[in-house]
């Protein structure tokens, strides 16, 4: 019988290693600064303003059970 905490940790370790491996492995593709005109477009960087993203996070935290996962804990929801 494997403890739940161990199962969680193992599963996420695999995901993290796989992701970093994929991203690290693709490091041979180098797009130089002068080739990044399209990548500098607003929609290609972050098309959501800070306030928009913050409200969406707060709103989802009030309506959905899977809030969090956005880089910081909620807090101040007032609606546990």
């Amino acid at each position, binding site marked *: 019988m494997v403890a739940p905490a161990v199962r969680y940790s193992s599963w996420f370790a695999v995901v993290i290693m796989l992701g970093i491996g994929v991203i690290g492995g693709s490091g041979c593709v*180098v797009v130089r600064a002068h080739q990044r005109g399209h990548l500098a477009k607003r929609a290609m960087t972050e098309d959501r303003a800070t306030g928009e993203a913050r409200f969406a996070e707060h709103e989802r935290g009030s309506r959905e059970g899977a809030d969090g996962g956005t880089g910081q804990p909620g807090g101040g929801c007032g609606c546990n």
Partner: protein
Amino acid sequence: MRLQLTPVSLGALGALGVALGTTAPARGDGTLAMRGVYYKERATRVMQPMLDGMFDAGTHGIVTGHFLVDAITSASASSGADDSAAFTERRYEGGLGYSHELGAITLAGDAKYSTESDYESIYLGGRAQAEFGQKNTVLGLGGGISLDTISAAAAQGPSMPTLRCDATHPAATSCPLNVYAMYASASQIISRNAVIGLSVDISTLHGFQSNPYRQAIVGEALVPERHPTDRTREAFAASARYYIAPTGTTVIGAYRYYRDSWKVHAHTPELRIVQEAGSDIDASVRYRYYTQDGAFFFHNRYPPDDVAMTQYVSDDVKLSDFTGHTLEAKLGVLGDAFELGGRWAGARFEGILEYAIQHNRFGNAVIAHVALTLPFDY
């Protein structure tokens, strides 16, 4: 309800000005964003005006700050319960952050304070970001602590009810909730038109996680909600952005998987399409699907004589099994499109209309944003 925001808005601007004055000896650029959000569902209406500022601090630093008011009206304090009376409440939140670039590494920290009649929260966080391969690869690592205090101060009636924080504190006037979170992220440019990203978040919560007002149905009686005091939450997300140059279209796909120790599992795929119309206008549409399992202890009714089933009781809709769909349309226009001059030429006007279909007791929701972002230098 009429919001009187002028004094607090000026106060927030003053606070940002003080922060700026103490950290930015050199001239620089900045932006000030004003946004108003309206949210309406069957039992809840929220109006949230907010201010966001971002300022250069020297040649390698950026100061950010925000202030907002959450005005909740015609809502039930028990958030979704059918049998509770309407109430009105305001929440105030302010935050400050600073990031500093050290070559290929950026270090940042931020703090946030939120207060309302029955909930107070202090958040402290930090993160580091490193760039590799001529900025083609960016890795991030961060964490935060949130120290919250919950009471039943908004309860209607002559006296404030006590809360059952845990087995050793069965009748307290307020209860703590501590949240510890960590996240890691990675993004990679894979071509001149495409970038992908991954992120993993883990947080653990200790303390009071019930609603102070909500009651579950146990047999024929109503019993105060009783949730577990510990919860571990995990999420990972992947996203991809692709720019179609001939049409000026950006396609964004994202997927997020979530699970926690309360046995809630959720899947959230999302698709956004952003279309440029010249250099000053962009329009986008978004579709988001959401589905989740219910928490292991959630039931619509609890049998009165089953000790195991009534160890935890809940009437929280967001812990039930449900699905949802969100549709959104957004329009962004630069001041240049209206032939405005000076700094107004770079100002961005934004409008968002969102409709959320929720297959649960909350019902469907409408959300609308209007925003103005104004660049400036100093």
